């Protein structure tokens, strides 16, 4: 549906997006994840034709965005980071303009405006001035605009930013609903959001693609970072002795808590977490030392994200390579 090939954007010396290539298929919700300044908005602006690329190309359903922008743009509905609203108009006037610019006319225009107002729950607000609407409603007008013309692809740049929790839930439901009929690409730096609604995640860091896979697969990729943390009622050297005698542990960190107990974080080298938890439990029980807490730490998207975006990405290549394998396996 969307093919991005070697997309690069340079501003003088600064490279905002660096040789980005990926392919987005029809009918899923894709999450575009990255820290602030990673190049999310720049990439989205280039995909939607709002910004030219220094190098590379973008194809929307086979149409090149830079060569046949008219045909490519008809397939897209875009909500930029800041909703592009005319403040001194009402949502109805605004949607009418956008619909007409997208080539809708007469009865079809009226029908579609009615439909998107209904979908984004703007009923009752359509004749108020946009300037007087709350942030949540403004955001909905922005989304309604992107839905007009029934585009096959919706690109939403941080659609839930600045909304209250109830509005966030509503917008997420709407996005999920949209994802059933069309392709939705949304950007975010909120991990839980992406985890909650996206079927595939693209992580970008410093303008480069760091990972592209389903959230569950990404978590699996980072099993290396899993471990066990526990609190033991014992002296540090006793804990050390027990841990030295165990297999499957690569490293550990110890800290003495204020109440005299020892907090330990163990990194697992091999084996299942549950097996290791069991042997830890019995090892301490055998020495008559109580374990007050025992928690298995699983990698979540957050760890993946931090690892990919903060380190200088030696893992990124691996994540990319393996993600292709797991994608193949999925099919």
């Amino acid at each position: 549906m969307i093919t991005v090939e070697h997309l690069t954007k340079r501003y003088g010396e600064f490279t905002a997006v660096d040789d980005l290539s990926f392919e987005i298929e029809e009918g899923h919700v894709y999450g575009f994840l990255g820290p602030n300044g990673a190049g999310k908005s720049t990439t989205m602006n280039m995909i939607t034709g709002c910004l030219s690329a220094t190098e590379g190309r973008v194809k929307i359903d086979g149409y090149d965005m830079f060569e046949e922008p008219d045909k490519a743009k008809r397939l897209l509905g875009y909500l930029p980071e800041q909703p592009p609203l005319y403040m001194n108009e009402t949502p109805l006037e605004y949607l009418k303009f956008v619909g007409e610019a997208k080539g809708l006319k007469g009865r079809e225009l009226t029908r579609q405006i009615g439909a998107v107002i209904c979908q984004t729950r703007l009923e009752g607000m359509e004749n108020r001035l946009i300037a007087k609407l709350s942030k949540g409603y403004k955001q909905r007008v922005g989304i309604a605009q992107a839905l007009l013309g029934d585009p096959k692809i919706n690109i939403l740049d941080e659609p839930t930013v600045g909304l209250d929790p109830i509005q966030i839930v509503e917008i997420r439901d709407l996005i999920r609903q949209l994802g059933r009929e069309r392709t939705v690409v949304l950007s975010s730096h909120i991990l839980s959001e992406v985890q909650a609604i996206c079927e595939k995640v693209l992580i970008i860091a410093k303008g480069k693609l760091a990972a592209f896979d389903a959230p569950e697969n990404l978590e699996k990729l980072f099993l290396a970072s899993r471990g066990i943390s526990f609190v033991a009622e014992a002296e540090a050297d006793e804990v050390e002795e027990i841990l030295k005698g165990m297999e499957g542990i690569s490293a550990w960190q110890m800290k003495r808590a204020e109440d005299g107990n020892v907090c330990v974080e163990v990194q697992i080298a091999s084996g299942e977490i549950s097996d290791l938890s069991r042997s830890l439990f019995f090892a301490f029980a055998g020495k008559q030392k109580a374990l007050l807490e025992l928690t298995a730490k699983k990698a979540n998207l957050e760890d993946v994200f931090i690892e990919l975006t903060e380190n200088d990405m030696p893992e990124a290549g691996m994540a990319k390579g393996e993600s292709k394998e797991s994608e193949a396996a999925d099919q």
Partner: protein
Amino acid sequence: MIAVLKHELSGYFHSLTAYIFGAFLMAFVGIGAMIYNIQQAVANFEYVLSFVSLAFVVLVPILTMRVIAEERKQKTDQLLYSLPITSVQVVAGKYLALLAVYFIPLCIVSIYPWMFARYGEVYLPASYGSIAAFFMMGAALISVGMFISSLTENLGFAAGIAISVILLNYYSVSLAEHVSSTAFGSVAVLWVLSCLLGVMIRFLTGDEGLAYGAAFVLIAATGAAYWIKPELFEGLLPELMKQLSLFERFYTFVSGVFDLTSIVYYCTVIGFFLFLTVQSLEKRRYH
């Protein structure tokens, strides 16, 4: 384009812009008609238009300051870029809407000569010819104002620059008498203009090589021409200032001559500045 045109028109008529512009234009024409046609009982409506033309210094910036600058300020330009319409369509739609807002009060004004003709001898062809030229001159000034608005997102800045540019153009003929008419003076000014052109190219295309190249070639060419045949540049600067004045050309119509070359000149100015406006919009995309 039709969508942009309709949208702009509804914007002008929903806000005060169209009414303020129309009211001011008609007030100026009204005052002029009262002074010349009624109190002094002159039968030439052309003089009124000539009297009103100075009002463009204020009227055009009122109309054009927000046309593109406001899109940038509200970030709605991003919407225009993402919609399946081209920059040419956006600029054409916006310009036609501005012309419509300007055309409506002018339609009312064009009743005046006909009214005066009922009470005395009025040479109508000269009156209506002048009204047509007045429309063309306004259209040219609006295209200049629109281009200036596309350069910034600051409305005040857009208005200020437009006022000074139009004022400079208005007085360029009187100023022409005071500038140096020597050959070297003209060459020096041409060099400065070449540098300015280079800066403009640099700003619009972001291509430094092209900007330096164009400026250098122009400077070298004028320098060489001056060295070979300095008399070419004798009195060139004042002549150039007279030729470029949009207002001076309008006075030809006021004196009763329907000068087609001036109409062509107005059309060229319109085309040139609309082209620059499109480039300025595209440049944003190429950043």
